[in-house]
């Protein structure tokens, strides 16, 4: 009686009525706006060293105080949004694209399935932070390295998800009917299989984005992340570590930014999942 699960992609708009999603979008808009407009937001040079002004508490000239080198924390945090959001979105895009391809291959080419999925299992067994740390240590710090190092551990999760969608869709009668109608594999995948992966991939992509922003912060904090001269939220906090007891603002404000941004992305992900996951919908209207 209920329309089939997959038709739900057309019901996206109700997502926007979800108060949590609205909150999340608002936060993202603010952070994204700050990143884009960084030079115009009453910021100074984020890497200008002013040794005489070190560890100033928040005040009128330096809204969020200064760090151990006298750099303005507000300017650094605003410019840091560029790095954090940039890394979040690039990792999400890269992990989703690569995971999609691997998942399709594993789900559709049975001969490769076992091998590919064992490799994915192996990757998943390595704690992601440690894998990223090892890669950054070996390849040297740099934004590209960090993006690669965060992306690789995220790929198996996406690939598994895509594979499971493919496996369930390929036994759908309408896919078999298309096979029976002589539809060739590339067309079969793009027409009948891929559209079913879009909704779960969007949801998974938001979670990957959130996790990437967190991982960047942790990597930089541990000294295995973005080169220290680039202000990223993780780097700002890493440099605030030593003096945490006398200048806690250096860690707290970027920490708040990370938390708010990641929270926003996570909430959007949850909202999308609730709207796109047919199981929740079915539960609400479980009528025979």
């Amino acid at each position, binding site marked *: *009686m209920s*329309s*089939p699960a*997959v*038709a739900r*992609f057309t019901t996206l708009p109700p997502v926007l009525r979800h108060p949590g999603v609205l909150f999340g979008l608002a936060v993202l808009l603010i952070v994204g706006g700050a990143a884009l407009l960084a030079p115009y937001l009453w910021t100074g040079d984020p890497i200008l060293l002013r040794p005489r002004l070190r560890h100033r508490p928040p005040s009128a000239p330096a809204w969020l105080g200064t760090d151990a080198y006298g750099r303005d924390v507000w300017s650094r945090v605003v410019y840091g949004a560029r790095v954090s959001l940039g890394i979040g979105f690039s990792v999400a895009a890269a992990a989703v694209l690569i995971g999609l391809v691997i998942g399709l291959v594993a789900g559709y080419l049975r001969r490769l399935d076992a091998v590919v999925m064992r490799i994915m299992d192996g990757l998943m067994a390595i704690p992601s932070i440690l894998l990223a740390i090892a890669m950054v240590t070996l390849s040297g710090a740099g934004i590209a390295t960090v993006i690669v190092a965060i992306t690789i551990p995220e790929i198996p999760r996406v690939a598994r998800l895509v594979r499971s969608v493919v496996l369930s869709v390929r036994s*759908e*009668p*309408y*896919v*078999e*009917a*298309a*096979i*029976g*109608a*002589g*539809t*060739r594999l590339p067309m079969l995948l793009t*027409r*009948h299989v891929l*559209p079913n992966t879009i909704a779960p991939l969007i949801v998974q992509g938001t979670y990957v984005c959130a996790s990437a922003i967190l991982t960047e912060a942790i990597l930089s904090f541990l000294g295995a992340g973005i080169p220290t001269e680039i202000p990223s939220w993780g780097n700002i906090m890493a440099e605030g570590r030593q003096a945490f007891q006398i200048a806690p603002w250096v860690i707290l404000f970027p920490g708040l930014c990370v938390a708010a941004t990641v929270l926003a992305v996570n909430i959007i992900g949850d909202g999308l999942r609730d709207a796109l996951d047919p199981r929740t919908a079915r539960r*609400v*209207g*479980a*009528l*025979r």
Partner: protein
Amino acid sequence: MIRSPAMKEPVLSITGLTVPLPLGADRANAIEGLSLSVGPNEIVCVVGESGSGKSVTASAVMGLLPPGLTPSAGRILLQGEDVLTVGPARLRALRGSRMAMVFQEPMTALNPVLKVGDQIAEMLEAHSGRGDRETRRRRVLDLLADVHLPDPPSLAKAYPHQLSGGQRQRVMIAMALANDPSLIIADEPTTALDVTTQAQILKLLKELQARRNAGILFITHDFGVVSQIADRVVVMQKGRLVEEGSVEDVLTRPRDPYTRMLIAAVPRAEPPPPRPRPQPSAPILTVRDLTKTYGGRGLFGGGRAVTALDSVSLALQPGETLGIVGESGSGKSTLARCVARFVDPSAGHIRIGGDDIALLPTRELRPYRRRIQMVFQDPYRSLNPRRTVGQSIIEGPMNYGLSKDAAWARATRLLDLVHLDTGALDRYPHEFSGGQRQRIAIARALAMEPDVLIADEAVSALDVSVQRQVLELLEDIRERLNLSILFITHDLRVAARLCDRLVVMLGGRIVEEGATAALFANPRHAYTQALFAAAPKLRLAQE
């Protein structure tokens, strides 16, 4: 009317029951102004098609309506006590003791992680006054024996997954009987079972009810079942009662047009006179020694191999409809899927025209795909929900080189053939009912101009009235197009109506085959005989 206990106080009496549907549903009320009663020692069947409100009625009596559904008017009196007003504690006390329920799906209605004996014992524990553990244990064993389950002591220790579907349903019945309820509600209790099992369960219910003096409210969609078990019948349509009466009256002299239509739509278990057929010529499809085994190729070779198809051979004449009949696990669907090459056979031959496609690799299969087309069981899953009906129909012909215009013209013609408006081409599947979708699926298959059409339980998921329309459609187009059909079904009545010849399958093998009329007149194999005996038949005017 001989058995009618009308003089006695009814165990269940529903008056003026109305259950509104949430806003935005296709109608205002799931049930509207429903009144019915069940006397002691009486079986009342509530019959209706999907969406008639029959299951909501059952849930309402038990107080188990899903969230969002609340009765707005009426009374449900269980031995004089209104279950709609008694309050949760009393309702719990009534459930399981004075009224009990048997559900449709025995596979999912039992808790998979508890032993069946404990699940029955829980019924006794929940309603006090059933003594100590030992008394309860003995009572459980008695109940299991009552429902004719073998070896009750070891069966009580089994988990549900270790039992067959029929055994699980017996356990459910034992559970329902545990506290000697006055009312048993059975919601499609045999629908998920094979016919032979269904016949046994119906017999058991009837026997137990006669012994225990309980009233049974029996929900079903199947008039065959009704005629076997009911004392009285209530027919529902779209939430309303349209007809009520004794089983003889309703089945032989239905007054309401809807009832008449429903009864007329039930396929008869006797085949119509055979169609005139030309002399057998070269078969269009030949299957020889087709075998399919699953498993047994694991890393350690330890997996047990299962033989789903065991050296099956058959031949299909041009223009013939060959029925493949069997219960679940008989291999009939595997056969269909092997012939359509959605499953790779392990060994054997499938000849279409002159070529053997049984073991062709997927790459070389493409030219042959067109010649065998399939119509699937579930109309809700057999069309891509994101593509219009037109796109779905023209996809195949265009794959084989037809121009878009020509394919579209063909699709228009075919929609007309399956009695759908050509405006349907630009609409999406969710705008159509199950029966309409099945017509679209047939049109899509025909658009390939196949040599063989395989219908895999193609009418099994449909309500009888819709089922009849689709069967009529198939009868019509096979005449017009001289179509060769492989018709897979579990329902002998449907097979009798449509098929020229029948093949009966059991455990992956063909046990009997022959012309439909001859087979029905004189089944030789014991299994075929059992199958025929179990098929629910309408007993109409003959009494």
